[in-house]
């Protein structure tokens, strides 16, 4: 373990941490702006130019608000819920590659915190932990609405994780690897996986909406029926933690979708760009492309939120179990058959 390696990883972790936090903070700003644009309004525009200081103002507000813990609540679990949700949402970005190996100070540095060979399994494990934050928070609140939200969140995440996993299996048949780095490198140039797995991508996209509890699958929160679901009793920074974890989850699942299906940091014509700009600036363009894809996905999440109404609970279950899972299985079978035929030829 050399010192340079440690420094390199520490810097990478810190940069990624701040980037994740600031992207989550500015997602709240973007969410309000997108909502306003889609509804012929202007959105926040008082704090700074274009309201760009709004996240800071909101954050300050969150800190100074009174934090109420209901007398009937289980205090320890009440605090553990949002902490767990926030912690788990941060873990996801550790295995994601944000660019090609970049050459700095004569070293080739991978732009990825850690390249574990079971990256996809790791992400799935972390994401499925995320539901514990919701369940613990909802149960500890000692409130019927919170409990309803928590139950919905748990059953929804379990149902959609199956379809999500099955859609990934079809992708793994194509890539033959569980490492994000390998999958990203395979999609060099324009060989994006969306071209070979369009149906798998569609299923994954729908499931990631459900996993991040976004509209049209925001039944755990569900302001109109459940007042706020699992976060009904939360105030101040604990509520902020839940909100933040939702936006970080959105960022992570956008990044996962970008890497798995949309080529991550790869873009058509990247080889010529890399030759022109050299091994330091070339990969940096790739990083910019990666973040452009992530932000495009985040915008898509918001765009859908302000267009589509919420599903009813039975419709949600119907869609998950009767439509997405059979489709995902069919996708696996078709992919397997096509791969066998192509290999035989």
């Amino acid at each position: 373990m050399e010192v340079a390696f440690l420094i390199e990883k520490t810097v990478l972790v810190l940069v990624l941490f701040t980037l994740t936090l600031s992207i989550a903070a500015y997602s709240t700003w973007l969410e309000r702006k997108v909502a306003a644009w889609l509804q012929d309004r202007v959105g926040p525009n008082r704090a700074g130019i274009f309201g760009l200081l709004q996240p800071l103002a909101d954050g300050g507000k969150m800190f100074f608000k009174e934090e109420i813990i209901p007398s009937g609540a289980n205090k320890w679990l009440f605090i553990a819920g949002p902490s767990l949700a926030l912690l788990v949402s941060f873990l996801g970005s550790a295995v994601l590659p944000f660019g090609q190996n970049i050459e700095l100070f004569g070293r080739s540095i991978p732009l990825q915190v850690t390249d574990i060979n079971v990256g996809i399994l790791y992400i799935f494990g972390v994401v499925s932990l995320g539901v514990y934050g919701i369940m613990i928070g909802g149960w500890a609140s000692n409130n019927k609405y919170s409990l309803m939200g928590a139950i919905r969140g748990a059953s929804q995440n379990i149902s959609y994780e199956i379809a999500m996993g099955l859609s990934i299996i079809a992708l793994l048949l194509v890539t033959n690897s569980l490492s994000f780095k390998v999958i990203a490198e395979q999609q060099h140039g324009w060989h994006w996986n969306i071209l070979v797995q369009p149906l798998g991508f569609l299923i994954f996209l729908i499931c990631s909406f459900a996993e991040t509890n976004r509209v049209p699958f925001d039944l755990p929160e569900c302001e109109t029926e459940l007042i706020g679901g699992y976060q009904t009793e939360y105030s101040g920074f604990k509520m902020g933690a839940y909100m933040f974890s939702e936006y970080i989850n959105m960022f992570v699942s956008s990044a996962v979708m970008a890497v798995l299906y949309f080529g991550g940091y790869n873009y058509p014509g990247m080889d010529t760009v890399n030759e022109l700009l050299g091994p330091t600036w070339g990969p940096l363009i790739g990083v910019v492309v990666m973040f452009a894809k992530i932000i495009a996905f985040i915008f898509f999440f918001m765009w859908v939120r302000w267009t589509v109404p919420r599903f009813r609970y039975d419709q949600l279950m119907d869609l998950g179990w009767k439509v997405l899972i059979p489709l995902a299985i069919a996708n696996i079978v078709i992919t397997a058959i096509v791969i066998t035929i192509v290999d035989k030829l």
Partner: protein
Amino acid sequence: MESLSGRKKVLEQKPMNFWERIYLPAIFRGMGITFMHMFKKKETIHYPEQEREFSENWRGMHSLKRDENGAERCTACGLCALSCPAEAITMIASEREKGEEHLYREEKYAAVYEINMLRCIFCGLCEEACPKEAIYLDGPIVPADYLRKDFIYGKDKLVEMPITELEALKGAKV
């Protein structure tokens, strides 16, 4: 039964076809509609900087008028207070002294004239009741405040600016 008005519409509920049942085309069409709204003209009026135009019969804050010589028109007859359905107006009458002719038009005037803006419903009945054309609801929106007592407006806020000052202002503007 035959519809007499001819406006009756029978909704046909056909079973959905394949494209309708997978919902995705409808969702994409909806998303197209919302996307186009991003480029439409925004309806927002940026309030403190821009203000919406009031209609001609807008009733806002009251003002107590002066006559052409700059004397207050109000004679403290109390008809406005009597007509007020919200009991928002009170006043104390006083007799005009010698040498105050340029201040008050009639021999009696309102020494104190108070309108409680929290009670006022801006119906305009005081305006209609006034025989001297002394009160009009031609002002702006009554501004917000922190204390209830600050919403009781006295003559300092209600009486129109003295004519000399008004003309000086106008002169300055030209």
